[in-house]
């Protein structure tokens, strides 16, 4: 390894620490704000607990005890919408991905083969959802799906599928075909081979797809805003609505924000390598 000069080292650490500060300070700020009394938020900035302000658990108590039913409801809504959309995306995505990887398709009318089909599917991912939101409203109105979990699950599955298919196709392409062939020789049916042999091998791909689908649906804003009004509202929309009250209650917003981001942050931190794989698969092959 080549040696660095002392000055270069100082610059390097200076920059790294500076950027780490930029990344971390907002987190620190929102975390501490959730323990500040309104007075300590609304006058001058207070930085260090116990030194320049006295922390309080009131806001957390308010959200988790007094308003428990509300908080739990919106959290559960998010969990249901994201969970089932994730499940559906994994199932349909892995099936379509496997099909596109292992079978030959030919759509005579369009003259499309596997690659065309795959490209068509991934191209759906980049359409702005705002261009289809009005038909969704009408459609959902007609079938009484507005403000239901099922409606959100349908919408999120649609948005997740292209990415799920893309990743899974990529993944199956990278799996050697020998194992499947020997299973077939041993008399297993296609379906058995897929369930018993292929899916277990594809676990890393499935995890990546599940994570991305879940996080996407958990974070989604526009469709939840437009397709729910009360019962099925998800966390981001509930939270975004809190700014509309007169005088923003920053302490509640802070605590709720932390509640909302906790699952995704934990997933991200513990399963980081799957996230990296998903992001780079999307980009490197794109």
């Amino acid at each position, binding site marked *: *390894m080549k040696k660095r000069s002392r000055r270069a*080292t100082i610059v390097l650490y200076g920059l790294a620490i500076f950027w780490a500060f*930029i*990344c*971390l300070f*907002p*987190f620190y*700020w929102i975390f501490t704000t959730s323990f500040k009394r309104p007075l300590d938020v609304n006058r*001058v*900035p207070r930085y260090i607990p116990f030194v320049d302000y006295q922390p309080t658990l009131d806001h957390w108590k308010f959200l988790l005890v007094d308003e428990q039913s509300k908080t739990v409801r919106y959290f559960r809504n998010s969990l249901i919408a994201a969970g089932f959309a994730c499940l559906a995306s994994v199932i*349909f995505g892995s*099936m*379509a991905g*496997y*099909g596109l990887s*292992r*079978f*030959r*398709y030919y759509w005579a009318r369009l003259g499309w083969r596997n690659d065309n089909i795959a490209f068509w*599917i991934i191209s*759906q991912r*980049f359409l*702005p959802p*705002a*261009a*289809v*939101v*009005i*038909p*969704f409203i*009408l*459609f959902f*109105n*007609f079938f009484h799906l507005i403000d239901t979990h099922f409606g959100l699950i349908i*919408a999120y599955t*649609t948005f997740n*599928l292209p990415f799920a298919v893309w990743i899974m196709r990529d993944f199956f392409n*990278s799996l050697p*075909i020998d194992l499947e062939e020997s299973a077939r020789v041993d008399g297993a049916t*296609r*379906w058995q081979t897929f369930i018993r042999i292929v899916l277990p091998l594809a676990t890393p791909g499935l995890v990546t797809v599940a994570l991305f689908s879940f996080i996407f649906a958990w*974070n989604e804003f*526009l469709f939840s805003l*437009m397709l729910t009004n009360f019962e099925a509202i998800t966390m*981001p929309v509930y939270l*975004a609505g809190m*700014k509309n009250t007169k005088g923003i209650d920053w302490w509640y917003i*802070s605590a709720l*924000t932390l509640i*909302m981001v906790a699952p*995704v*942050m934990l997933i991200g*931190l513990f399963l*980081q390598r799957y996230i990296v794989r998903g*992001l*780079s*698969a999307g*980009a*490197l092959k*794109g």
Partner: protein
Amino acid sequence: MTNQSSIKSLPPDENGITELAEDRLFKRVFLTPTVAILLVLSIFPLLWSLGISITTCQRSVQVDASSSTLGNAFCLGNPAELSLQNYARIPTDSRLLTATRNTLFYVVGGVAFQFAVGLGLAMLLNQEFFGRRFFRLVFMLPMMLTPVAAGYLGRMMFDSGLSPLAQLERTIGTALTNLIGQKVTFSIPFITEPSVAPLTIILIDSWQWIPFMTLLLLAGMQAIPDEIYEAARVDGANARQIFWSITFRILLPISLTAILIRSLEMFKIVDIINVVTGGGPGSSTESLVMYVYDTALTYGNYSYAAAIGYVLLVMVIVFATAFLAISRRITRNQLGTES
């Protein structure tokens, strides 16, 4: 990723499986759900949306749809008449113009900024130093946030007189006052000034998405073998030459892809703006997606909202096509001698 790049894909045409009747059934069963979902919930709404945009459909017509005709319920029949008035309105709608300009500003300015900083940070993380893994993790944190949450975090940094940043500004103001002897008030109206607010939106969005650029570019850099650098150094190339003729060239394809992905995402920006400025002051930060939302839900003008959605769609398609064409050319010119 190493895993991904080292593996040759098996094109189905070459895997040599003979197609049995069982296979013919299965391949349909496997692909059909996805194709059906996308046809019904993506392609069909897209066409339907175009249909709605050439009617005069309003929510008021549509509200008690269950009791009236299917045409009303789906915004396609009487009394929602066919007309091109929505498209006639587009050139004269100044709010639409502002929203379009803002969206393009976010896409071009925001993504360029994110790429520049992301590249810098990737180069930083590509050095070997103690604590690199820690810094890499910390640098990635903002990306894990829900955009709505990132919006609130940003707003707490920039909003009101209460943020730490505002206090810093006041401190600088006081220091300057003492220095010059004249009263200096130093305060940047991050959110309240129409000319500054879009920049604030870009800053907050960048805070969240610079990590995406960093991550991809870093992955690209780490795939460059050390021998290439060694060889260049032996040949007497200086740091700048090495950067432009090796790092930059090899990173070019992945950079272009990262920029494209980020741009296409940026066209959809809505949540951060909604939380930070609500589109204001005036409509100075409003994006096209927000305008669609407002037109549809606040004004109940479904047909015009659909038309704006189509404006956005056309912009995205034109942008993506042009970008792909240009980047193909750049890649060819830059890498023409190799490969």
